[in-house]
């Protein structure tokens, strides 16, 4: 409806303009440039290719069938020889370099020519998972597996306790990126499964590395001070804490653990205070009525009849009561009941602590002072304004979520997306019968008082075979101005590009997928991480190597929006140390906003046309006045649901006008 109206109007204008070319030769040539080749269409009206071409792709390791939509594959580069058959993992970026982690070390690529990345260094230094981050001249690499060695040897460690073992963070000097120099280690009790680098805006001397280590605690004989006891028994327990390493930028060899924040304390319990006089009165009243009630963690609780009956049986056994208990015995039982229940809470070994004892990954967003912690059965929101003392603001659990894996904020920090790596990534969790809420993303709005408010789930929608390990994994947001668009890895489910601007209705707008690596279940692979970096989407494929994609203009993401995203240039990128994207004023940015106002639709057609024509004229001829005029016009109309976007457009036009 909308587009036919648009074309009708546009056609009329062309005719009108064509008829006056003899009087004026200025506008005719400009009109085609002002009109988008592809009409923007709302994501609520997405028409994806049907039937989904991702279903039924032919298997193959380096020659699998593939399907692609709204993306373009610029290059696929197999791993260098020493890394073939070894797991590629996470990515970090510095200047034109891609740093690709691998269970056997680090691979460095130069992406100056994205159609043919140049191998710069393949640094053999085994340790899973080799999660990588950069800051300044430093490269950080995670080591967790039992085979990692301080000397980067490939022979593993064949004893339980080994002085050669590295579990923690390796630090390299990459002032010469092409020749990293291994300068320091920080060993930790649980090793480092992942880590995230925090650059505190108020501290230029240090960076902080948040270490998540979900694996077992190493023996004390190997690393003194490591304890796997429950924290109640040993306050130095390595469980129920994360590690924060302080790295002095001038002397990285002095990097050391600065704190071990216990961000999980009392997670199962709501905030407590002593019972109020009113509670005490109420409790006494209920007890007088004969109800099995007691105070627990600040609230009045009642034991269910079923459960009380079962506990009575246990009590009778313990007290050797045969037959019906007497009235006195019942009274004593009722007195003992609360203690029996409370004891149950702390009975099971690990079950005693109902909160998580580690995070899998933490995404730090220093510009907004928040971090998203994906921590076993919980998603946490943390205040990180004091880098060594993160404070938990909220924690959420979800019965559909198995294993909270990673977090991604929107650029404005108003929402956060958590992933569920159900099954650990090695299992096929995208089969037709697997529920769309399991192994998916969960999107939360962040409320004004910094709480997490659930909105919806998103799961890559194409069913995969039982031979393809598939579940939500790493991704990053793209700097598409005014929208929340993310590219994300789904292991052998490929990569999915989706829009979650409306947190309640995330929609897929692009993808790439390959067929299974093998159909007898051997091998394994798929996309570990795909991240946007300086205009391209870089994919770390576990077995197949490195893919680089570009975006293709489409009704749901126009060329202007893509061009605007390419105006954002970063010096480096760690996706779990999320940067805030900022867009320099550009014609691409203005046109992207116009496309979005057209798509929403937020303005009358005439206004959109006027904007397009005016911006085109200004771009072609440097006409500043028209920009000023348009800026004031847009600003004065900036009301309603789209006020924010109109204001941004007005500001952009104004900056362009100079």
């Amino acid at each position, binding site marked *: 409806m909308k587009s036919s109206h648009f074309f009708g109007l546009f056609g009329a204008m062309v005719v009108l303009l064509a008829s006056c070319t003899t009087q004026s030769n200025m506008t005719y040539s400009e009109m085609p440039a002002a009109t988008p080749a592809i009409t923007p269409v709302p994501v609520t009206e997405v028409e994806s290719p049907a039937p989904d071409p991702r279903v039924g792709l032919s298997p193959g*390791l380096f*020659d699998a069938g593939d399907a692609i939509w709204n993306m373009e594959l610029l290059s696929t580069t*197999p*791993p*260098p*020889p*020493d890394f*073939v*058959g*070894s*797991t590629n993992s996470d990515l970090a970026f510095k200047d034109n370099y891609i740093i690709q982690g691998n269970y056997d070390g680090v691979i460095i690529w130069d992406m100056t020519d994205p159609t043919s990345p140049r*191998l710069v260094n393949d640094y*053999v230094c085994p340790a*899973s998972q080799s999660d990588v981050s950069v800051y300044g001249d430093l490269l950080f690499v995670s080591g967790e*597996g039992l*085979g990692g060695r301080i000397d980067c040897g*490939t*022979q*593993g*460690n*064949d004893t*339980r306790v080994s002085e050669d073992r590295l579990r923690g963070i390796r630090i390299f000097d990459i002032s010469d990126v092409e020749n990293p120099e291994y300068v320091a280690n920080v060993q930790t009790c649980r090793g480092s499964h992942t880590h995230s680098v925090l650059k505190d805006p108020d501290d230029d001397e240090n960076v902080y590395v948040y270490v998540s280590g*979900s*694996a077992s605690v190493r023996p004390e004989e190997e690393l003194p001070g490591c304890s*796997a006891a429950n924290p109640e028994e040993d306050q130095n327990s390595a469980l129920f804490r994360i590690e924060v390493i302080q790295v002095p930028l001038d002397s990285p060899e002095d990097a050391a653990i600065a704190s071990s924040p216990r961000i999980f304390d009392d997670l*199962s319990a709501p905030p407590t205070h002593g019972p109020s006089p009113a509670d005490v009165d*109420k409790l006494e009243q*209920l007890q007088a009525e004969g109800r099995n*009630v007691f105070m627990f963690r600040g*609230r*009045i*609780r*009642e*034991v*269910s009849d*079923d*459960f009380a009956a*079962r506990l009575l049986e246990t009590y009778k056994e313990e007290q050797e009561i045969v037959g019906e208990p007497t009235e006195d015995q019942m009274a004593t039982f009722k007195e003992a009941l609360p203690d029996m229940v409370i004891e149950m*809470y702390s009975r*099971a*070994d*690990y*079950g005693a*602590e*109902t909160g*998580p*004892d580690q995070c899998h990954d933490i995404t730090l967003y220093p510009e907004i002072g928040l971090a998203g912690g994906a921590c*076993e059965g919980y998603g946490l929101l943390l205040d990180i304004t004091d880098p060594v003392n993160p404070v938990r603001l909220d924690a959420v*659990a979800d*019965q559909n979520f*198995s*294993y909270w894996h990673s977090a991604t904020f929107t650029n404005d920090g108003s929402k956060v997306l958590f992933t569920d790596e159900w*099954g650990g990534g*090695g*299992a096929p969790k995208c089969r037709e019968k697997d529920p769309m809420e*399991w192994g998916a993303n969960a999107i939360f709005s962040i409320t004004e008082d910094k709480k997490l408010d659930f909105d919806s789930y998103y799961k890559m929608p194409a069913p995969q075979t039982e031979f393809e390990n598939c579940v939500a994994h790493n991704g990053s947001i793209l700097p598409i101005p005014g929208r929340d668009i993310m590219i994300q890895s789904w292991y052998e489910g490929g990569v999915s590009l989706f829009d979650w601007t409306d947190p309640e209705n995330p929609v897929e707008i692009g993808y790439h997928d390959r067929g299974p690596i093998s159909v007898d*279940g*051997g*091998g394994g692979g798929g996309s570990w991480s795909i991240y946007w970096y300086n205009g391209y989407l870089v994919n770390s494929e576990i077995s197949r*190597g490195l893919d680089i994609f570009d975006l293709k203009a489409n009704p749901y993401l126009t060329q202007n929006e893509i061009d605007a995203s390419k105006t954002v240039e970063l010096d480096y990128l760690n996706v779990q140390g999320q940067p805030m994207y900022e867009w320099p004023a550009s014609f691409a940015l203005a046109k992207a906003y116009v496309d979005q106002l057209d798509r929403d639709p937020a303005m009358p057609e005439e206004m959109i046309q006027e904007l397009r024509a005016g911006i085109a004229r200004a771009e072609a001829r440097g006409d500043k006045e028209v920009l000023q005029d348009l800026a004031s016009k847009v600003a004065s109309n900036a009301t309603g649901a789209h006020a924010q976007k109109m204001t941004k457009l007005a500001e952009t036009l104004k900056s362009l006008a100079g």
Partner: protein
Amino acid sequence: MKIKFLIATLAAVLLCSSHSFAQDTRDLSPAELEKLYWDRIEEKLSIYTDADVKFMEDMIIHHSQALVMSRFAPINGASEEVQVLAARIINAQLDEIKIMQRWLLDRGLDAPSVEYDGIESVITMLQPAKENDGGHMSDPSMDKEDAMMMRGDMDMEGMDHEGEDHSEHEGMDHDNMDHSMHMDHSDMVGMLSMEQLAELRDAEGPLFDELYLEYMIQHHNGAVVMVEELFSYDGAAQGVQTYKLASDIQVDQRSEIARMQRMLNERIVSSVEE
């Protein structure tokens, strides 16, 4: 087994020492690349110890019991929340069982497969394919020695592989089982006794919910302990696949224990207020 490990190590060292002569893999055809890939995968398969094998065998049996426990949920009137949990456990542990069976078969070892008839379990051994395509189900008319009825004590002796050292199980008492509520009724921590399984089978509704949660916490705790045990052996879990699998089981079950504890707390004590 130790020797195998050293050979693998040596192979890895040799491979890496050829580093400076490495050719660009871009010059290889897909077929050549693929051959290199599978050769490497093959080399890595040999990195394992007896403890790794024992872990896989035990965990398959351990996981199988979680399946039978969970299958009672829909027929015993479990709450929707517990049914969702049980469905998840079935889905997750079935997949992990397949991965562990595959792990054993890929290494040329027999892999246990557990079928349940009510609460009685029958273990059959899957045998690795001689030639190419991974494992296959052994013939149902197999030797009686290969199949055995498993009773409550879950005696594992029949599964030992010739020549392997399972001395870590010495001292375990398989004959004099105590079928009490304690967890020492089998050589695998956390396994439910026959009495507990029967109790679960007969429980209905809210009582089933509570029992299921309580027993599954016990069961999962056992898996967590089994992983800790694995990591305590010299040279164990050095293979990337083994380490990942064991770690994943540990973290998944820990998360699930926390979730179940939360659910159990809510059931045992309902809040009067709010």
